[in-house]
C-alpha cells in the first residue's frame, strides 16, 4: 500500500503503514461503539421506572368465587382469579398432550392455594388483554387474534405460543399476596 522504498522493502508481514491503518481502524471502531453505548443504554428502563416496580400487596378477602381482579405491577396488568371448585376439578383433569404449552395444574398455582391463579394479563401473542369468562376453556379469549386460555391461564388455542406467565409472588397470609417477591415461603 505504499510507494516509498522503505515500505516497498518490507517483508510479507506488512508495513508499518499497514499496522497504523489497522490500528486506526480498530481504534475508530472501539470509539464508535463507546459513543453509541450511552445512546442505546439511555433507552433502557430508567432508575425511576425500575424503582416504581416495588412489590405490591394484594388483599384477597374481597374476591369472590370465579371473580377475576386486575392489578398493575410495573405497569403490567396482572390477573388475580379465584377459581371455583368446578374449575379446579376441570383444570386438573386436562391431559397434558392436549395443551400447546403443557403445564400441570400444580405448576400454575402455589402449593396449598389451589383456588388462586395469579398471572400476567397480556396475551402472549401480541399483548392484548384477553376477556375473562369467554372462549371454550373456562378461561379467557383474546379479542385481537383469537387466542384462548383456560381457567389457569394455559394457552389452549393459538396463535399465542405460551401460557400466561406467572409473576413472582408469594402468600404472606392465606388472604394476602405480595407480587414482586418470590422469597417469603409464607403459609404453605
Amino acid at each position, binding site marked *: 500500500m505504499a510507494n516509498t522504498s522503505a515500505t516497498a522493502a518490507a517483508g510479507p508481514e506488512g508495513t508499518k503503514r499497514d499496522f497504523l491503518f489497522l490500528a486506526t481502524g480498530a481504534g475508530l471502531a472501539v470509539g464508535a461503539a463507546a459513543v453509541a453505548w450511552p445512546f442505546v443504554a439511555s433507552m433502557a*428502563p430508567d432508575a425511576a421506572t425500575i424503582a416504581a416496580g416495588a412489590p405490591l400487596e394484594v388483599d384477597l378477602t374481597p374476591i369472590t368465587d370465579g371473580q377475576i381482579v386486575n392489578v398493575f405491577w410495573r405497569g*403490567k396488568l396482572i390477573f388475580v382469579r379465584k377459581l371455583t371448585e368446578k374449575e379446579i376439578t376441570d383444570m386438573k383433569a386436562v391431559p397434558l398432550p392436549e395443551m400447546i404449552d403443557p403445564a400441570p395444574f400444580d405448576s400454575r398455582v402455589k402449593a396449598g392455594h389451589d383456588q388462586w391463579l395469579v398471572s400476567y394479563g397480556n396475551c402472549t401473542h401480541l399483548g392484548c388483554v384477553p376477556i375473562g369468562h369467554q372462549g371454550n376453556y373456562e378461561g379467557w379469549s383474546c379479542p385481537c387474534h383469537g387466542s384462548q386460555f383456560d381457567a389457569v391461564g394455559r394457552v389452549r388455542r393459538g396463535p399465542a*405460543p405460551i401460557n400466561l406467565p406467572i409473576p413472582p409472588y408469594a402468600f404472606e397470609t392465606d388472604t394476602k399476596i405480595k407480587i414482586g417477591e418470590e422469597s417469603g415461603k409464607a403459609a404453605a
Partner: protein
Amino acid sequence: MSAHATSTYIPKSRLAKWFESRLPLVGLVHSSFVAFPVPRNLNYFWTFGAILIAFLGIQIVTGVWLAMHYDPNASNAFESVEHIMRDVNYGWLLRYAHANGASMFFVAVYMHMFRALYYGSYKAPREVLYLLGVIIYLLMMATAFLGYTLPWGQMSFWGATVITNILAAIPIVGDTIQSLLWGGYSVGNPTINRFFSLHFLLPWMIAGVVVLHVWALHVTGQNNPAGIPIKSSKDAVPFTPYATIKDVFATVVFMILFAWLIFYQPNYLNHADNYVAANPAVTPAHIVPEWYFLPFYAILRAVPDKLGGVVLMFGAVLILAFAPWLDTSRVRSANYRPIYRQFFWVFVLTCIGLGYLGAMPPEGGYVLASRLLTAYYFAHFIIVMPLVGLFETPNRLPASILETVTGPGKQVSAGGSGLPSGAAAEPAKRA
C-alpha cells in the same frame, strides 16, 4: 445531476452569473425540473410522485405546527389532543389535515407502487431507484405507526402494544429491542416520549431518501407506459411546462378528495375507540390497524404461529425489494405482456382482499380466506413473476415512444402541444 439532463440554463444578470459560478444551484434545478426530457406518453399514473412530494410537505408542515401544542406525556397526551381540537385556533384543521394527510399519503404511495409494478418500473436500469422507493415505503410505515400512537387513545395504546410485541418475537434480541422501545416493563410514559421524538425524526429521513430517489430517477430517466427508452428528441417533451402543469393539475384534483375528507368526513378513516383515553386494563373489542396496514395485518393473523406470522408479515414488505430479480421478462410494461397483465390484476385483487380480511374478526372462514390469499400474495412474487416471464410471448413492442402516441408511421413535430393522448408528462416516480 444526470446524463439525461441537458442544462440549457444561462444566467443573465450579473448577480445570477456571480452566484452560478459559486454554486450552480439554479442550473441544477433548471436541468432537473425544467429542461429535463420526459417521455411524451406518460399517463396520469405518473403524477403520483409529485403528489407524494406535496403530501410529504403537508405532513411536515402540519406536524411541526401540531408539535407546538401537543404534549408527549402519557398522562396528558390525550387531553392535549382535545386541547388542540377545542382551544387552539384552527387546531382542528391542523389535526384533521395531518391525520387524513397520512391516509392520502398512503393512497398516493399505493397508486405509485402499483404503477411501478404494472409498468415494470423496477427493472433494469431502475433497480436502485426502485429499492430507494421500498426504503421510503418502510420509513413511511414506521412514521405512520409512531404517529398513530401519539393521541394516546385506546387504539393508539393497543396498537403500540401489539406492534412492540411483534418485535419481541424476533429470536434472541427481540426482548432487548422491546425493552429499549418501551423504556420500561410495558408501554408507558417513556414509550410515548421516544415515539414522539422518532415520529419527528423519521420524516426528515424520508425527505433525505426522497432526494436520492429523485436523483436516481434523473440518472436513469423515467419509465413510461410503453416501457421503452427515449430514443430521439421526438420521444420526449421538456419537464416544464408539460410535466409541471400536469403534476400541478393532478395534485389539485387529488386535493379535492383530501379537502372532502378534512371538511366533511374527518373521522371516517379514524376509529371511535381512539377517542377513548388509553386504558391498559381493557383491549378494544375489535382492534384493527389503520386501513393502509390491513393487508399486512391479515397476513400476520393468517399464521397460527407467532414467529411465523411476524416473519411472513415483514416478508410481505421485503419481498417487494426482490421484484427486479424475480421478474424474468425482458419486457417492462404489462401493456405488452398479455399473460402477466392478468396475473397483475389478480394480485391487485388479492391485496384488496387481504385488506378486507384484515378488518374482519379472526375466525371461521375469514381465517381460511386469509391463508389462501396470503399464499397467493407470495406466490405472485416467487412463482408467477419468474415463470410467466419465461413462458409468456410478449406482444410486439412499438418502435418508439412517438409511435405509441401518434400510431405507426405518422409524424408529429417534437414538443408540439395539443397531442392526443397525454403528451405531457411529469416526474412521477419520485417519493
